[in-house]
């Protein structure tokens, strides 16, 4: 089931990145801080 484990790994990586990006984004926005392209204020 679920085929090649490395394929699963790559798909999982992509999914987790999306999940963490969503979490980070909502937390930072919740605090009224910028996210995304203007993330780096330097």
């Amino acid at each position, binding site marked *: *089931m*679920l*085929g090649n*484990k*490395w394929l*699963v*790994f790559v798909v*999982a*990586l992509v*999914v*987790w*990145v999306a*999940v*963490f990006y969503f*979490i*980070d984004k909502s*937390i*930072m926005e919740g*605090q009224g*801080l910028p996210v995304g392209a203007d*993330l*780096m*204020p*330097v």
Partner: protein
Amino acid sequence: MKLSRLLALFAAFVLLFAPELALAAADQAAAVLEGAPKPSRLDYPMIGGVSGRTVVWSAAQMHLFLAAFVLAVPLFAIATEFMSVVTGDDRYDSMAREFMKITMAAYSLTALVGGGLLLSLLVFYPHLMGYMVKVFRGQMLIYAMLFGLESITLYVYFYSWDALRRGNRKWYHMSIGLLLNTVGLTLMFIANAWVSFMMSPAGVDPTGAVTGTVWEATRNPLWNPLNLHRFLANIAYGGAIVGGYAAYMFLAEKDPEKKAHYDWMGYTSNFIAILGFIPLPFAGYWLMAEIYAYSQQMGITAMGGILAWLFIIQAVLIGTIMLAANYYLWSGLMRTDRGAEYAKYVKYIAVVVVGGFLVWLTPHTLILTANEIQNLGGTHHKILGPLGIMPAKNTAVNLMLVMTFLSFQLFYRSSRIPTVSWAKSGNMIVVALYVVGITNIVSAGIYGYITPTVYKVGASVPQVVSTLTIIIGSVLIDVFRLRGSKPEKVYWGRMTNRSQYALFVLPVAFTWLMGLMGYIRSSLRTNWHVYTIMKDNSPENYIPTLGDAGNVITAITLGFMAIMVFVFWLSRLGQTKQKGTEDAA
């Protein structure tokens, strides 16, 4: 046991009547709207050359150690009891009873030391106590009554264990346990209200005159952060102490069967300690954030002012605890035949944990002479400087927590062989979770480093959430992945003696750490009894140096260790029978 019950009764009396007397006095005083008392330096009783502050400090800290222990153990005793009902494994039930057995003797001592604390406060700080009674009025009476109830339920819970062990009766027993824990927590919350009121008073006007209800004074800004912090710390602390007990028994027993039992008990206690410990930094973060929100000054006093050095020792202690807990978990891989497969990862985990420890130790600013600053080219070291600031430390602590959890997960996996068809793929999902989660923690740390303060604080929240996501996510996936798995034989007792010493590190370091945190929490008020309301004008109103505090904390920890040795000895005495008196009763 008779003796300890008598002691408890005596202590309960002290607690019951002392506040009542004070209350009567306060009723008369409260007739007019009156501010907090302003005692002058000479109004503080001097008794011989005795340092009143040290006496109160020692009594309070000792009371806290004991209370944390006796409140925490029933919490996980009932959880373990519940486990035995769910799994039908009687071993859990016996262990829960054993947990309680070693608390019983400590309980009366807790009350006794509490009475001593009250007495020393009344003797050395009568004005402060008078004021506190005025603010909290009847609540102190309720506290005393609850204390009586706590004693009753505790004794009923323990002594009815075997009588209410099977079938429906078990549920009665667990209800008593639930009541016991409810009362216990309420007691702690009330005591926390008094302490947090002194830090962030509410329900009084700026002169200290009581304008609000008792509930308003109770619900002061720092009450809930303190409640959560102490609740979690108690669990970790209780687990660590019981772990120390199990480790000692493991070393002392010769019988392999008993050795196996105590190994298992040590493992479970360590697990409980880590369980309470992992969310603790986050609770601490919340407490600190609330302190900042309540008074920026108080926050800066803690983190950037004269107390900043404390956090170096805190880092040493927490690092020690983490290393010891990890070492114990790694040693545990010996218990299973498949453990060796996982042992190869240990060195990588070790590198991260030790590395995190070192980063955490790196001080931010150093107190330097002019020459040293010149040689260094600034107050911050070029290479080490960045490691000293908060984002780096947050990154380090989160990685250490993730690694500690990983150590635990490795052992758990070594004891089960998955049978589901997607076991390997499922594992890859977990690996991917770790990879992405850790990357997220590190990049949030780097982001926090290069951005201004507001962002630094903001960026630490995703780190915390990442850590929790890794832990919760991989537990959830493993639950499904290991469904229907074949349990691998765990050879309980197949542990080195050396690994048991790691279990002693936990309670000793924890005790000292709690003492240190008590010192800092109390010092945050600087020269105030009740921050901004009632000034401390006593000759000892200053913050003692770190070294002086270290001496006191060490002395109190030694005293607490002595008490624990006595308590454990008592609990074993109860089951020791004189030769020739077998089954006489």
